[in-house]
């Protein structure tokens, strides 16, 4: 069957109608040569994106039996999907159609009508050349499992599990240690209101235990992972007993948390384990356990709290330290109002609406807040320079440090296993800093809590809930997913197995087949970015809908 191409030029009111000589386009295009036996029909219409226009176009496609369609109109950003829909409705494969932007690219930018018309004709001819080399592509649907693997049994992981588990969705919650609750379980009270915080956390742990749709794996790590959104195959390994469990899940949540950095690793913090210098977490444990006591067993009469330990070296603010140091200071005062409590801070970071009030209330307890620009520690002796003041030295009974939060141990091996990225600080890298902090570059793998960056309990829980919303919307029980159609493919005969494409793929969509000695594209994961196509030295790769022949025909015609 010979090709029959319909070319429809939209007037777009004055936008194209007045700036381009449409009658000339309609006269020149059908008479164009160089398309072999293809028959070209060209027609104009007032406004193709209107209801009437779409109906007209659909009827024209059906009645004329076009094999290919060109719409010369506006930017594809505005109406590409509109006309793809018209093609589908008319029974024409939408990948045999192309929109040509003669408004933004021609009519709007060239004020000489003749020249704008020449360019529009050139563009339409280039489009015809390309569309003749386009192939039908078909959407596929893939079965999914709605079940979810959550890595990390801290507050973020617990919240994610509770937000997702239900009769139609099982959650597997994997925790490296022997119990759930993470670091927050060690806190004496939770910020900012310190009310039912710790108790609420215990209730949540209990809710996980009671939930028959959540299966908890303690002392377990993730060992293997392959697959993609809707269909991940993971292997869990018990660290104690060596048991292996194979699971199929639709999504993976990474909630591996943080740890506090070692203050001794930073310059200016010179003390030994026998000094009464403690990290914030140690003090939290004392407060929620047997109470505050110095190594001698006595209670401290003077306490120094030092903020921002390692902030400069790490290159970021850990966001929650100001708040929890105030909380700890308050506890010291509650235990004994006579305790002399001094907080050394650089900048107070109080970004939540309730934080300032908490600061004001804490200050009212009689805590001495000192704004410093420099501080060093030698044993329990603090040398500091207050802003606008001179260097001073003071020895305290007890020193409490707020060391910078840093990624948990094992973060890099999880990144490697899941093929997700880390940022320059070693935290997991989000899909987009501003608009997508819970996703990663791999579809179906999500981040919650401090594994993505320092944050408090409330924010960690919000992230867990947010990704639960994403998973609920993406993986509907009993539903299917439709992967990208314009994906890369590898011609086996040409592939030399050099694996260059594996290195440039940002989505983990290509793997190496040892048996055959070639690279293989996982079409369900590929997003069609074309990186592999450009990098393949042997011409084995191509990205559907952006093949060399399509682009070559289009460009050479446009440049004639």
């Amino acid at each position: 069957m010979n090709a029959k191409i319909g070319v429809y030029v939209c007037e777009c009111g004055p936008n194209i109608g007045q700036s381009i000589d449409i009658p000339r386009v309609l006269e020149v295009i059908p008479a164009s040569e160089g398309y072999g036996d293809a028959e070209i029909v060209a027609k104009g219409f007032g406004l193709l994106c209107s209801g009437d226009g779409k109906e007209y176009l659909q009827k024209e496609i059906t009645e004329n039996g076009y094999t290919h369609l060109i719409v010369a109109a506006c930017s594809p950003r505005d109406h590409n999907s509109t006309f793809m829909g018209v093609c589908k409705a008319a029974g024409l494969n939408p990948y045999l159609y192309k929109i040509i932007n003669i408004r933004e690219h021609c009519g709007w930018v060239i004020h000489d009508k003749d020249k704008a018309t020449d360019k529009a004709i050139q563009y339409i001819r280039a489009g015809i050349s390309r569309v003749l080399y386009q192939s039908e592509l078909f959407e596929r649907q893939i079965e999914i499992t709605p079940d979810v693997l959550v890595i990390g049994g801290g507050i973020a992981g617990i919240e994610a599990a509770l937000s997702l588990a239900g009769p139609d969705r099982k959650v597997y919650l994997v925790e490296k240690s022997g119990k759930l609750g993470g670091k927050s379980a060690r806190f004496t009270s939770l910020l900012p209101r310190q009310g039912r915080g710790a108790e609420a956390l215990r209730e949540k742990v209990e809710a996980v235990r009671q939930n028959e749709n959540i299966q908890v794996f303690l002392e377990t790590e993730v060992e293997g992972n392959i697959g993609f959104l809707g269909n991940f195959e993971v292997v869990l390994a018990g660290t104690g007993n060596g048991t292996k469990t194979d699971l199929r899940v639709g999504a993976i949540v990474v909630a591996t948390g943080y740890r506090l950095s070692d203050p001794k690793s930073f310059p200016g913090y010179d003390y030994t384990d026998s000094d009464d210098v403690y990290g914030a977490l140690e003090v939290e444990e004392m407060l929620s356990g047997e109470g505050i006591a110095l190594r001698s067993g006595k209670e401290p009469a003077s306490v120094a709290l030092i903020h921002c330990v390692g902030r400069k070296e790490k290159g970021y603010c850990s966001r929650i330290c100001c708040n929890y140091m105030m909380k700890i200071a308050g506890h010291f005062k509650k235990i004994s109002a006579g305790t002399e409590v001094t907080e050394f801070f650089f900048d107070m970071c109080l970004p939540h609406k309730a934080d300032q009030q908490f600061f004001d209330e804490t200050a009212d307890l009689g805590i001495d807040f000192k704004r410093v620009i420099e501080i060093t520690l030698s044993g329990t002796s603090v040398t500091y320079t207050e802003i606008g003041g001179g260097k001073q030295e003071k020895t305290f009974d007890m020193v409490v440090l707020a060391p910078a939060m840093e990624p948990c141990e094992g973060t890099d091996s999880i990144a490697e296993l899941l093929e997700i990225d880390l940022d320059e600080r070693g935290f997991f890298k989000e899909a987009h800093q501003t608009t997508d902090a819970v996703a990663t570059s791999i579809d179906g793998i999500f981040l919650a809590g401090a594994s993505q960056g320092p944050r408090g309990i409330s924010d960690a829980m919000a992230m867990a809930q947010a990704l639960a919303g994403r998973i609920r919307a993406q993986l509907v029980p009993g539903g299917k997913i439709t992967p990208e159609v314009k994906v890369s493919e590898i011609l086996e005969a040409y592939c030399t197995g050099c694996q260059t494409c594996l290195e440039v793929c940002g989505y983990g969509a290509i793997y190496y087949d040892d048996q055959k000695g070639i690279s293989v594209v996982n079409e369900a994961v590929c997003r069609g970015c074309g990186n592999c196509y450009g990098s393949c030295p042997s011409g084995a790769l191509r990205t559907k809908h952006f093949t060399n022949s399509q682009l070559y025909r289009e460009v050479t015609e446009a440049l004639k």
Partner: protein
Amino acid sequence: MHHENVVVVGGGIAGMKASLLLAHAGKHVYLVETLPIIGGKTIKNEESFPNLECSTCLVAPIQQEVLQNPNIETMTLSSVAGLEGEKGNFTVTIEKTARYVKIADCIGCGMCYEPCPVTASNEWEENLGERKAIFVPCAGSLPNVPMVDAERCLKLTGKEECAACVEACMFGAVNLEDKDETVQVEAGVVIVATGAGLFDASSLPKLGYGKYPGVYTPFEFERLFASNGPTNGELKLRKTEKEPSKIAIIHCVGRKERGYCSGVCCMYSFKFAHFLKKKLPEACVYNLHSDICVPDKTYQKFFDGVKEKHSEMLYSSSVDEVEVTGKVDGLKVAYNNERDQPGEIDADMVILATAIVPDHNAAGLAEVLGIDCDERGFFRTLDDDVSSVESSREGIYIAGTAEGPKDTQTAVIQAEAAVAKALAFLETCRPQAAEVAANSKG
């Protein structure tokens, strides 16, 4: 089917992201926005911190997707006027102000503005530019459909029988007979994402806002700098039309009065410094700050870069001690320095980093929806140490700066968290198989 519908109030970044996620989950969304366009405050910015991405490029695809999604019914120039029923079964009354332009027929060609004889100050451009009585707020508005200002239009005010815009439109899209209407929709849940406003800088007379033309609010500066703004991004000062050479950015304006830190002002102030030095390399830029609040893993690096290359950082012990004096083109900024000694700098431009405050209509909306505000006037959420999206009324969720000051990242997370809560609840509304069978027998 109440439980398949959701009303989202507010078309900013939080409302749009919530709407899209709900739509992807198969829900039908009524997105209610008071302005003629969606996009919220983010689209007023030329670039967004910390990566300095073009804000339009960041937000326009989201706006487009919202407008093109068949599951989202975007209702612009609309506000929620009533709410009846309870969670799972709300009836929401929405008042739609007449646009006088048919969205379905308009292609956004802009032919109607030119012939309009009326000129008015453009509020969306912080009154730094002008518009006609038929207008879109700025280039790139979405939906790209103008509205008619009924209070200015000669025909609608009865001053003249003008029909210039009607005649200019080739699609018959302008309809000056359009009427306001009230509609009722049914929804299982409501998500409130109405955003926030800025502290009124003129309430602190010592800072000179309104008195000296060289004193700017943050959004005034954003629009002045914006390439799609009234000056096409040319930095020309009000009145003098000169480029500024010494710029003082004053942090924490209104922090004490409001009783909280707004969390984002430090970052946008540093962004301004970066903008200014990029456009005016010879200019001196000062940031007068107290506490530096850079609470994201990426923010400190941005601050360090600005401190090194773009701005002198002056510690000012309290904004209470800051005073702006001078004349039209020469201002003096007095402050207390780190030794609590008086300091002074010359400036021809002052930018006030004003606190984020509740939207002017927050209390009114709270009353309509039957939800509580906190003592600061933002919508209250339950247990704000444990969860942060559930309002005081079941079935109503809060997202974005409507809940309190926050950066875009946190607002988006909150929006998606609100959707998660909403979807989980709506799932429980779905009639169970047994009930359906029982009902069909009955």
